[in-house]
């Protein structure tokens, strides 16, 4: 994959972000850098050290130095003092790879197979479908009014799932920009999975098709993340990063800040996009969960364009940034 040479010096942060995104997603393995695994650097008595703790798991992510239990309630200095003579790091409590010494869970079977009698419980592999209409909203801004959506749907068992997602907006009755993605989700970590599939861009300008490769999951402290890299026709590349979090004011009032960055490896003037960081949206939605599945919201979004994209936008309608006021519904089933 090669980056476009068309860079403008005014878009340095964009380029850096772009490079970082590509590096994280494509060269270092899908999103391992994003899936920080909390590692408990716990002091513990030597006689109680688990055998597997002696040798750190071979492929475990780097320990998170900030995550020391000593700053936790009930984990005062005495414990550290008591075992200071034999500090032993524990393995990570979440995710990671099994150490060579891990117990064989099949050893207890004594060679027996499970009963083949009819009507055994199968609910643990039940396939379900879900439809999340995260954003269905009316938009008003200094550049006219319109509507926007951000929806996801999946179907599958407890782990692997077929995944559809789409986002886009309609302005003055015309489809401005939209993308539809069909992905296969496969988890590789308790909170993270890969998404591989295709993306189709619709709206103003020529349609574009892409191969999609990304990760989706939850970071420590509960930030939902989607990071996807795209390869299109003729060596086009792109990346989309989304992050959001739910801040619960009460059991029903929830504030969701969200950011989305779109990056392109090469400019696409026909679609009004320049290379590097093209757009960055900062959004804030305050919803009221009448039911978990039904939440009206109001919100505000600040859409910024950068670099060549900003130039193209300014040429088209005189403004590069946009502040939107949103009223919408979050629905799922």
């Amino acid at each position, binding site marked *: 994959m090669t980056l476009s040479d068309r860079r403008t010096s005014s878009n340095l942060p964009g380029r850096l972000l772009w490079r970082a995104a590509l590096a994280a997603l494509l060269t270092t393995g899908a999103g391992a850098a994003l899936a920080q695994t909390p590692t408990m650097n716990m002091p513990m008595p030597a006689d109680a050290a688990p055998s597997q703790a002696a040798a750190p798991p071979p492929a475990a992510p780097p320990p998170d130095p900030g995550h020391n239990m000593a700053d*936790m309630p009930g984990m005062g200095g005495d414990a550290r003092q008591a075992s200071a003579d034999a500090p032993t790091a524990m393995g990570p409590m979440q995710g990671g790879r099994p150490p060579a010494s891990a*117990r064989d869970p099949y050893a*207890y079977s004594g060679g027996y197979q499970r009963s083949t009698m009819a009507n055994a419980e199968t*609910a643990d592999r039940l396939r379900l479908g879900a439809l999340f209409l995260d954003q269905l909203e009316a938009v008003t801004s200094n550049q006219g009014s319109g509507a926007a959506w951000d929806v996801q749907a999946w179907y599958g068992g407890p782990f692997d799932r077929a995944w559809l997602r789409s986002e886009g907006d309609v302005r003055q009755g015309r489809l401005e920009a939209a993308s539809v993605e069909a992905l296969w989700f496969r988890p590789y970590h308790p909170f993270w999975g890969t998404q591989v599939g295709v993306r189709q861009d619709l709206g103003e300008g020529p349609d574009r098709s892409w191969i999609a490769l990304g990760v989706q999951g939850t970071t420590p402290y509960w930030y939902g993340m989607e990071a996807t890299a795209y390869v299109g026709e003729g060596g086009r590349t792109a990346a989309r990063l989304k992050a959001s979090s739910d801040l619960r004011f*009460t059991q029903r009032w929830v504030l969701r800040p969200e950011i989305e960055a779109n990056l392109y490896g090469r400019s696409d003037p026909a679609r009004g996009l320049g290379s590097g960081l093209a757009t960055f949206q900062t959004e804030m939605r305050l919803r009221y969960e009448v039911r978990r599945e039904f939440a009206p919201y109001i919100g505000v979004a600040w859409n910024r364009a950068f670099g060549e994209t900003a130039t193209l936008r300014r040429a088209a309608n005189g403004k590069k940034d946009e502040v939107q006021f949103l009223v919408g519904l979050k629905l799922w089933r």
Partner: protein
Amino acid sequence: MPLPQLLTAGPTRRGFVTGGAVVGTALLAAPGWAQDLGGSGGSSELTLAPLDVNFTGRARQATAINGGVPGPLLRLRQGETATVRVTNRLGALTSIHWHGVLVPPDMDGVPGISFPGIAPGQAFTYRFPVKQAGTYWYHAHTLHEQTGVYGPIIIEGEEGDLPKADRDYVVMLSEWSDEDPLRIYGKLKKLGGYYNFNQPNLGDFFEDARRSGFAAALSARSMFYRARMDPTDLSDISGATFTYLMNGVTPAGNWTGHARGGDRVRLRFIGAGAATYFDVRIPGLKLTVVAADGQPVEPVTVDEFRISPGETYDVFVEMPDDRAYTIFAQAMDRSGFARGTLGPPGAPAAAIPPLERRPWLTPADMMGGMAMADMPGMASSGPAARHARTEYGPGVDMRVDQPRVNLDDPGIGLRNNGRRVLTYADLRSRGIQVDPRPDAREIELHLTGNMERYVWSIDGIRYSESPPVAFKAGERLRLVLVNDTMMTHPMHLHGMWMDLESPDGQFQVRKHTVTVQPAQRVSIGVNADAPGRWAFHCHILYHMAAGMFREIVVA
């Protein structure tokens, strides 16, 4: 020994089978439990059929037994052979399992393990020798357990020198939802916290910060947030959808057992919730626990006890006067309660205590022994957990390396509440001879799961993917259970007793359902004296369905 007259002193609702077309929430479901199927060697008939009910103000259909929710009391006599014919008039496959009763493997009622289940329109005749005495229960080993297929069993027989009771009542605690259980399960799969309306929020953060300081409030949360764990996740399913029932009666309906001043009353509590731990007390009365899971224990007097889905506790109370007393059973997550009354006919009902403050999980519930290392008198770390290599996948969101082993913890929400609360450390079997052989080998199983995906498993392997666990016929073995999750799991073994051991390895109490608290390790002696295939699972119905279930082969 002379046996107390059962259930005759209670309000007789025999023949009231309209199924609850009663105004508002003051509903009385058809009181199947008040029917007495008798026993004494005769055969019994259980017919499972749909029943129109209204527990919440909305008309729904339950799956009832002989027209009641719960089903009728099945009274058996130790030494006889029980014959129970079960007819399925429901629309789906069902079964009846005799919970805690040691029966032959093909009579145990687990579809796919004991037998292929009972198809709609079919009947199955259970026949088994009754080897034991005490309080047990029966229930469907399918999702019908949530919608009404459960009922009490009392087996009369040798129970030691228990004092004679003037009154004897079953108190069966369960829950009802207007939602289909499969729908509940699907919602949890999509949003694990769906029913939790006690999630951490800005309001309680500020309240906490005002009380204990900003930094303390922040650090109390950071451990859980960093691990993507919800410290308020005590019960997956809450009062948001559940109406909690006592003998099939809503709190407004106020199930009442009659007793007068001076009466010695035996209450046979049965934890028949599909997903709810209940914390039970009778304000003003002391509770003397005399049996656990049907088996006699050294009497221990407490103010309160926690009962899991699956457990039973026999409790004696002495009525001091002619006033009414409230039997109060709040859900572990404090999102609701079941309630009834013990008192003379016509006495005004006693006050209902307020629901208590909702507890949060503590570091000890997440970290086990590690978090307790610096707590005075809490040197309770046991051996390190030996994680299976299958515990490192996407289905397991947490592992505890150093579980705690103490049994003297009443559990989350009951610690230091100012009342004397029963713990497993208080339970000592009475008159039970355990196998004197030392535990020949140890089988360590880890209770695992991923709350966000709502996947539950043992050693990280869901039931449908799992190998069986093989016990050698005749061996005495030690089953070690380590709870890697932050939820409390009632583990139930079919076909054999579980002899719970103290942290120093001494036999303590014989049970059929053992609660393993978050980040706890328990040791259980098992006599593998029942050749055949058996079930072993978490008795939270939805955890079992999601995969926290194993087949045991004794051969």
